[in-house]
């Protein structure tokens, strides 16, 4: 592996000052399941690795029924799905944490790392988008917040500027009669990269027959994960029916701009957007109806 220096930062200001000083050649280390591979394969020129795992704020995993979840940027997948309140409140996020890699990857990989790596196929990002999550970013000029759907700008690129780091992800408290779902298509049963991924969240009325609002997000069909805004809006106020779900699925297909590669053709991916959007919506609806 290329030579680099390693620093374990203990506070946010310390990490930010280091990032600011070292510039482009410094990278944050969370679980390292993307970064170490990228440095080893010389896909990133890194001279400084700043380990943030000793910083208290990035290890936060605080759920409150009124204010929602603060998910520290370095919290590993296994800690997220071990938390009953999070499993209950944000099942779509749990779906993703259980399929990112295998057991050993989930022991290290953070959802914050998944987000900052900004892969178009990242499984963690569509659930965050449908859950209305916000990124809390620290930098030399203080903190700022960015909605998750605006965080990734291109493959491997984010809105983070020099000196900035992700501190945590804030997710609002789940509304009553709401749920979420994420799934992906892969040729294997596990340990693979999404050909397409789709997430959905729904809020139903008290009869559980009508959709109050919905959010749909897609992975691996564009340079960044996408919020399917138009498709989501179509469902607001609609009675639950196959026709309504199909309409949303078609609207989701309309924004897909997939490429053809070894994992699938553009045509297959567009088709899959329709199939997976329907399944994600129906899955989220079923979870609301089954909840006690």
């Amino acid at each position, binding site marked *: *592996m*290329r*030579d*680099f*220096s*390693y620093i*374990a930062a203990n506070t946010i200001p310390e990490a930010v000052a280091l990032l600011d000083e070292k510039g482009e050649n410094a990278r944050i*280390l969370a*679980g*390292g*399941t993307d970064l*170490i*591979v990228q*440095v*080893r*394969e010389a896909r990133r020129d890194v001279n400084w*690795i700043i*380990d943030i*795992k000793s910083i208290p704020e990035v290890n936060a995993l605080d759920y409150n029924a009124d204010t929602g979840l603060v998910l520290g940027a370095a919290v*590993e997948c*296994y800690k997220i799905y071990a938390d009953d309140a999070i499993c209950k409140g944000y099942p779509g996020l749990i779906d993703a944490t259980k399929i990112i*890699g*295998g*057991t*050993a*990857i989930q*022991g*290290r990989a953070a959802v914050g790392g998944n987000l900052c790596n900004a892969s178009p196929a990242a499984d963690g990002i569509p659930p965050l988008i449908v859950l209305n999550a916000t990124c809390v970013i620290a930098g030399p000029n203080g903190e700022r917040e960015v909605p998750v759907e605006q965080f990734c700008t291109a493959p491997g690129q984010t809105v983070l500027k020099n000196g900035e780091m992700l501190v945590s992800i804030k997710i609002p408290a789940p509304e009553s009669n709401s749920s979420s779902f994420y799934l992906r298509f892969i040729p294997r*049963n*596990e*340990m693979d990269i999404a050909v397409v991924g789709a997430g959905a969240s729904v809020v139903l009325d008290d009869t559980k027959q009508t959709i109050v609002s919905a959010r749909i997000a897609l992975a691996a069909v564009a340079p960044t994960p996408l919020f399917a805004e138009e498709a989501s809006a179509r469902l607001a106020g609609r009675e639950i029916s196959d026709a309504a779900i199909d309409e949303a699925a078609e609207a989701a297909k309309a924004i897909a701009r997939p490429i053809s590669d070894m994992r699938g053709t553009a045509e297959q991916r567009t088709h899959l957007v329709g199939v997976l959007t329907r399944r994600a919506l129906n899955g989220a609806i079923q979870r609301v109806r089954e909840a006690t």
Partner: protein
Amino acid sequence: MARRSHVQTTINGETVEFLCEPRQSLLEVLRDELHLTGAKEGCNNGNCGACSVILDGRLVNSCLVLGVETEGKSVETIEGLAAPDKLHPIQDAFLENAALQCGICTPGFIMSAKALLDQNPNPTEHEVRYWLAGNLCRCTGYDKIVRAVLDAAAAE
């Protein structure tokens, strides 16, 4: 070259000190500096599980951990499993079930199985298969490995 760092960690219950460069993975430290060659390098990118070890109670791929990250932590490797005169029940079960052929994947599978049984002493076959999905074997066809883990669970 970045300065070699001094790291103190616990390996298989013993306090160990070593010097390593930041770019050396835990796998490289174990094998090249500490001569614990049980953990194997297959892919060096997190896909094969041959390098699996337990870090602070969690299964990890040691090829995706930096040696310097283990300061103050506890590492369990395959070398720590058997007692001087007795194999660990998972090791016995692997032998009984002929769950290995060339053996290069075996230390990783056994550490992965240990991490599973430590937290779930009675897994279903389904749970075993999912848990071991990050460990690849090119020889056995997996079935004997799954049987061995289920037998070890029953024996423990």
